[in-house]
C-alpha cells in the first residue's frame, strides 16, 4: 500500500502556543482516517499546514512522496488534495449551482475568458453533483440563503467535486444536530465509497469517529498521543481524558 500523506517532524508554534511539535504521521492510500482531539489540540492547524495555508517552522509534508512543504494551497489542490472547512467557506453572492459549476470547471482546467461557465450539459453535471448531496433543490438559490446544515454539505460537496485523491474534512458534523450527524456522514460515505478517495476527517465527536473511521489519530496540544483501531484507542482512559476532559 502506498503512503499518500506523510508528515515528518512537523512543528508550528503561535507565540508560546504549541499547535504542532515534531508531528509524525502517515496515511495510506484508500484509508479513512479520523483525527480526534479537544479544541486547541492542533487539528485545524494540522489541516492548514498540510494544505499549505500555514508554513511549518520545522518539518516536512510529503504527498505521495513529493515534498509539498513550500507549496501554496492552490498548487497542493492541483496535486489532488481537496479540503472542507470548519466554518463553511462559500461564495455567498453566487447561486449554489454556479458555485458547483466553478468547482467542476476548476477540476477540468477550464478557466477561460470567453466560453460561458453555464451550458446545458455542464449544468446537468452540476445538478447531478448537487443531487449526490441532496442539494439539487437549492440549485438556483443564493448560497447566502442556505440553511446552516446545507452550507456545510455544500462546502464538502465543492471539495468532493474536485475528485481529489486525498480529501480532508474539518469537522464535517460541527453545528449539525445529534440526530442528523449520522445522516450527514452516511450521505458522505455513500458518495465516497467505491471512489477510492483517501479520506482524513477531523472531529471532536467520538461516536462519529468510532463509527466511520478505519484508523484513528489522537491529537493533544500539537502531539499525536495515540493511534490505532478506533474501538481500542477510544476506550483508552488517557485518550478519553485528553479529548473529553474526563474519563
Amino acid at each position, binding site marked *: 500500500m502506498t503512503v499518500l500523506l506523510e508528515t515528518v517532524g512537523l512543528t508550528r508554534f503561535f507565540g508560546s502556543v504549541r499547535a504542532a511539535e515534531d508531528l509524525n504521521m502517515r496515511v495510506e492510500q484508500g484509508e479513512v482516517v479520523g483525527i480526534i482531539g479537544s479544541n486547541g489540540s492542533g487539528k485545524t492547524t494540522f489541516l*492548514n499546514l498540510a494544505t499549505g*495555508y*500555514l508554513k511549518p517552522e520545522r518539518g516536512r509534508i510529503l504527498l505521495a512522496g513529493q515534498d509539498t512543504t513550500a507549496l501554496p494551497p492552490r498548487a497542493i489542490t492541483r496535486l489532488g488534495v481537496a479540503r472542507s*472547512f*470548519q*466554518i463553511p*467557506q462559500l461564495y455567498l453572492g453566487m447561486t449554489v449551482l454556479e458555485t458547483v459549476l466553478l468547482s467542476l470547471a476548476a477540476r477540468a482546467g477550464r478557466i477561460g475568458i470567453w466560453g460561458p461557465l453555464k451550458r446545458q450539459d455542464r449544468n446537468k453535471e452540476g445538478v447531478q453533483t448537487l443531487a449526490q448531496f441532496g442539494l439539487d433543490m437549492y440549485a438556483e438559490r443564493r448560497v447566502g440563503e442556505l440553511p446552516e446544515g446545507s452550507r456545510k454539505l455544500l462546502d464538502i460537496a465543492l471539495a468532493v467535486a474536485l475528485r481529489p485523491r486525498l480529501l480532508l474534512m474539518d469537522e464535517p458534523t460541527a453545528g449539525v444536530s445529534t440526530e442528523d450527524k449520522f445522516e450527514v456522514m452516511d450521505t458522505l460515505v455513500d458518495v465516497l465509497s467505491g471512489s477510492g478517495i483517501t479520506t482524513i476527517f477531523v472531529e471532536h465527536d467520538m461516536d462519529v469517529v468510532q463509527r466511520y473511521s478505519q484508523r484513528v489519530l489522537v491529537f493533544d496540544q500539537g502531539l499525536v498521543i495515540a493511534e490505532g483501531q478506533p474501538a481500542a484507542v477510544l476506550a483508552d482512559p488517557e485518550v478519553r481524558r485528553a479529548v473529553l476532559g474526563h474519563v
Partner: protein
Amino acid sequence: MRLLLVVALDGLTYASWLFLVSAGLTFTYGVLRVLNLAHGNLYALGAYLGATLVLRYAATGYTPALAYGLLFVAAVIIGLVVGPAIERLFLRRVYSRDEEVQLLLTFSISLILEDVVKLVWGVNPIFADMPYSYLGRVRLGGINYAWYPFLLTAIALAVGGLLWFVVTRTRLGKVLASVIVDREVSLTLGINVPRVYTWAFAAGAVLAALGGALTAPMFSLAPGVGAEVLVTSFAVIAIGGLGSIGGAALGSLIVGLARSAAVYFFPELDLFAIYLIMALVLLFRPQGFFGEVEVRRI
C-alpha cells in the same frame, strides 16, 4: 562637499515635511483601519486657516513671534472641529460595511471639502510668508540656509517623539493598542471604543492640519494642494507600512533624501523618485517596511 551638505539639508527638510504630513494618515489608518481620503483637504484647511490667521495678525503689528502659535491654533481648530464632525456624522455609519464603501465615503467628503476651500478662500493664491522670512537665514558650512526648515524639523521630531511616547508609554497608548488588536474584546473590557475612534480620527485630523499650517509660510497656497499631499502621504506610508508611525518616519527619511539627491543629480527623476521607491519597496515587501501581513483564520 558643499553640495552633499545641501542635499542632506534639503533631504532633511523634505523628510520633516513628509513626516508631519503623513503621520496623521498612518495613525488614523492604524487605529480605525480606514484610509482617510479627505486627509489632503484637512491639510489644505489647516494651511489656509493658518495663513489667514497669520496675515490678519501681521496686519495688527503685534510681536511676530506669536504668529507661530497661530499656526498651531489653526491646526487644532480644524482638527477638532472638522475631524470629529466627519467621524461622528458620516464615517461612523459605515464601519460595518466594506472597506470600499468607507473609501468612497471619505472620497465624497474630500469632494465636498475641495469646494468648501474654494468657496471660503477663493481661487487666488495666498501667501503668508512672514513666519518663514522672520526667522531669517543662517550660514552653515558655507551655505546660506533658511532657519524655518530647521523649525519644521524640530517640530517633526517633537511630534514623532510625542506620538511614540503616547503609544508606548501611556495608558492611552495601551487603550489604543487594545482597540487596534481587538475591537470586540476592548468593548467588553469597558473601553468606550466609539469615543476612542472619534478622538483618534480627530488626532489624525489635527496632524494633517498641522502639516498644512506649518507649510503655509513656505509656499503660495492655491486650490488643489490637497490632492498631491494625499498621494505623497500615501506613498510614504505605503513604504513604511500602513499604520506604523515608525514606518512613516523611516519612509519620510528615505524619500526625503532620495528626492533631494534626485533634484541635484538626476533632475528628470525628481517627480518620480518617491513613486519609484514605493514601487521598488512594494515589489519586494508588499506590506512596507513595518507593515503587517494579515492572514485570515480559517
